[in-house]
């Protein structure tokens, strides 16, 4: 059993608990122990990075330092925002000596590697994953939705084709699904305006929904709690009839489903838009 540092962040401890559950279930199946970083703190995604660059980096760096103290060289951050903050901190520590100098614990901290769920499934455990697929997604048409942060900015994530990333598509194909070609994969869901300007969020969401629908998708696949809540929670408000609504499923849930895990274990029953019809019967 291999060990991977785990940073759930605030979302996975609350509104995105099904992301957390499905991730732990999948990791268990793959023989990976997720070891939560003791006493982790906020990643600095919400207000901090908009107000004080250095303070935001210090928050993320503090978590990296705690990971190092716990002997963890890699930190899995499933939330796209958490991942982006941790990766930014690691990048800044490496390339901006001024920041490193301001932190007591900085030397060597840049070597603690933040890992996204996408990167982990695509590079870390792909072979193990292949052998565990017992319930392929049976041609499920999937709109892979990255949102704004999962692959951006390229200099931090190292992903060059940020406008047309294909990593999630590759995984969905591996799981037996059919990724659709569509135009909004890396469009912003409007997350930052969720409280202050809901109309923007609804407009963005509707455009994303329309594009996925036009492309013939059965479900959305996401890897970010913000994307998830904006799409899953608000389809009614976007004026979409219940019957026409598209389920929004976490990448880890889809993976777990393809591995034959139960819907309840994966938290698939926790969504606003029901997932059962799209995924089919649990036993087949």
């Amino acid at each position, binding site marked *: 059993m291999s060990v991977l540092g785990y940073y759930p962040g605030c979302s996975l401890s609350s509104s995105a608990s099904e992301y957390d559950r499905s991730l732990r279930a999948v990791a268990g199946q793959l023989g990976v122990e997720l070891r939560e970083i003791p006493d982790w703190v906020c990643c600095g995604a919400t207000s901090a990075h908009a107000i004080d660059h250095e303070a935001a980096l210090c928050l993320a760096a503090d978590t990296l330092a705690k990971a190092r103290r716990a002997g963890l060289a890699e930190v899995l951050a499933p939330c796209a925002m958490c991942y982006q903050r941790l990766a930014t901190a690691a990048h800044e520590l490496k390339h901006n000596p001024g920041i490193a100098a301001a932190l007591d614990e900085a030397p060597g901290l840049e070597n603690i590697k933040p890992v996204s769920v996408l990167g982990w499934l695509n590079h870390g455990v792909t072979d193990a994953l292949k052998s565990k697929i017992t319930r392929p997604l049976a041609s499920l048409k999937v709109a892979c939705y990255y949102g704004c942060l999962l692959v951006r900015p*390229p200099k931090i994530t190292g992903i060059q*084709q940020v*406008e*047309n990333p294909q990593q999630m598509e590759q995984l969905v194909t591996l799981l037996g699904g059919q990724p659709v070609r569509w*135009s909004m994969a890396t469009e912003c869901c409007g997350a930052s305006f969720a409280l202050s300007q809901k109309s923007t969020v609804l407009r963005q969401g509707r455009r994303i929904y329309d*594009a996925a629908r*036009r492309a013939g998708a059965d479900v959305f696949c996401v890897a970010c709690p913000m994307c998830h809540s904006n799409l899953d929670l608000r389809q009614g408000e976007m004026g979409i009839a219940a019957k026409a609504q598209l389920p929004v499923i976490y990448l880890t849930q889809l993976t777990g489903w393809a591995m034959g895990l139960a819907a309840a274990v994966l938290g698939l029953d926790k969504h606003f838009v029901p997932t059962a019809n799209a995924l089919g019967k649990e036993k087949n």
Partner: protein
Amino acid sequence: MSRIGVFICHCGENIGKTVDCARVAEAARQLPGVAYAVDYRYTCSEPGQAQIRNAIQEHKLTGVVVGACSPRMHEKTFRKTCASAGLNPYLCEIANLREQCSWVHADREQATRKAIDIVRSIVARVQRNTPLAPIRVPVTRRALVIGGGIAGIQAALDIADGGTEVILVERSPSLGGHMAQLSETFPTLDCSQCILTPRMVEAASHPRIRLETYSEVEKIEGYVGNFEVTIRRKARSVDLKKCTGCGTCWQKCPQKKLPSDFDEGLGLRTAIGIPFPQAVPNKPVIDRASCIKFKNGRCGACQKLCPTGAIDYNQQDELIAEKVGAIVVATGFQVLPKDQLPAYADGDHPDVLTGLQFERLASASGPTAGEIRRPSDGKAPQTVVFVQCAGSRDREKGRAYCSKICCMYTAKHAMLYRHKVHGGRAIVLCMDVRTPGKGYDEFYRRAVEQDGVIYLRSRAARIYGEDGQLIVQAADTLNGGERIDIKADMVVLASAAVPQADVRTMAQKLGIGYDADGWLSEAHPKLRPVETNTAGIFLAGACQGPKDIPESVAQASAAAAKALGLFAASELQRDPVVARVNRQPPPLFSTCIGCFTCAAACPYKAIEREEIRDRQGALIKQVARVNRSLCQGCGTCVSLCRNKSIDLDGFTDEEVFSALEALLE
């Protein structure tokens, strides 16, 4: 005892501001061997040079040190000055007080001390210098032009008209380059092919131009005046002598559905054929990768039907060796492929066109005979969005530079579209419009005022397909950044001009430089824009950077003038900085033991074997000898020689070490 003169130049404020030049001259005066030292505001000026000449005569100087700018700037100037006063030019050395001192330091005291150190070092060196004489080399009066686009054609014509033979090598089957693909040209809207084809024909029929189409330069050796070039004549599968260009073969070829490169994938071509009707030479090539005969042995229709028996399936590539004295590189550019811009409809939407694709669409000889019809369904587009800076001026996703030609060709595209689709809407999204050039801004104003082209200051953020149309997301930045989503039937990208994909390999073959983007480097960005850093190799056209037609033609003529200038001399003079194997009196003859490690290491094949024989002709020993014409003075052999039998004239161990020792004093 040497009598060295030291001349410290202020270079205006360039050196004088950071270095106390008077103090440097004063310190130089105290150095052993220095007979005269002085500082002056501009030593390169005529009075400054007179100062050197007078001092040489008055003080009977045996060597000169000029503390000034880099030797790359003025070493030649000052050596000539010395020569005119009767001092061997190679007894003059430059102490670099500008690039290596004043420009890189701020502290006056420290910079002055460093300047004194540099001068002391060079004074020590120059005392060991020996007089040298330039090497004279013969010139082969014949030029090679690489690339048969408008720049290459122009350079070849000018050189040939000047009386010198030219070999014009083009890798595609026909002359013409990108200019042959264009529809109309800005700012006059005259038809590109109509002005180009007479030049192509002229080049092909010129008695002093030899065309080598469908050929590539394989290897280049030698040096200015004496290049040895190997050209690969690719197998056309067609005998050029027998073929009359009648066209029977490509009319009958059953393999008709191949995407045409010349039409940028918008039209179709056959497996045997000419790229376009006015091709020069008007003789076909078989594309072996798609020909049925080459794929599975069947077919053979062209061979059966050819009235002159010109089809030869067994033709092989041929390597031909040529000697030339000068080379003009005119290898051109390409446009940024669509798939490099995934934000624009994932980089593969049929109705998103590159600038060059639109040229083919608008061209009378193009796949639609000049009608503007969109590739996906053949309908005339009612709204076309032209996206400027597609890949240019974009450090994040594209190239940092401005591609220079796109503002003008976009204005032209929009204008042509409005002329051809009446009532159509042409919208240009631009950051700004750059129109420096004769008649250029007038042309752009005409697009706006007479042809009703709508310009929005904006940058397309994303383009995606929706219900048979394209949605262009942008923001109108002159209207408070208001978000605009334009529904378009077709999008034309002002695709960035980028270097040829294999330009680096080409440059390495030639031994010339290129920049980080892949554009070939000129010797000086302002004062030597057509020369490369390799003597005898010149640049023409867009291989050096994005250029429009008039500029490419002008640079081609300039390159031709440079080549003709080189041919005007009966022989060339080269710096005598070459390696030398020492000679000793018999019985030793030389300390060289004949191991020939140097011969294996020499990149220029300049090391020869010399046999030393007694009067009876019996071999005494074999030693290395340097061919002074081939040697480029790189010094590799010097550093490898096990017993220090080789030295580099102008940079002998003695000279270099005395300079170093003086620094360490």
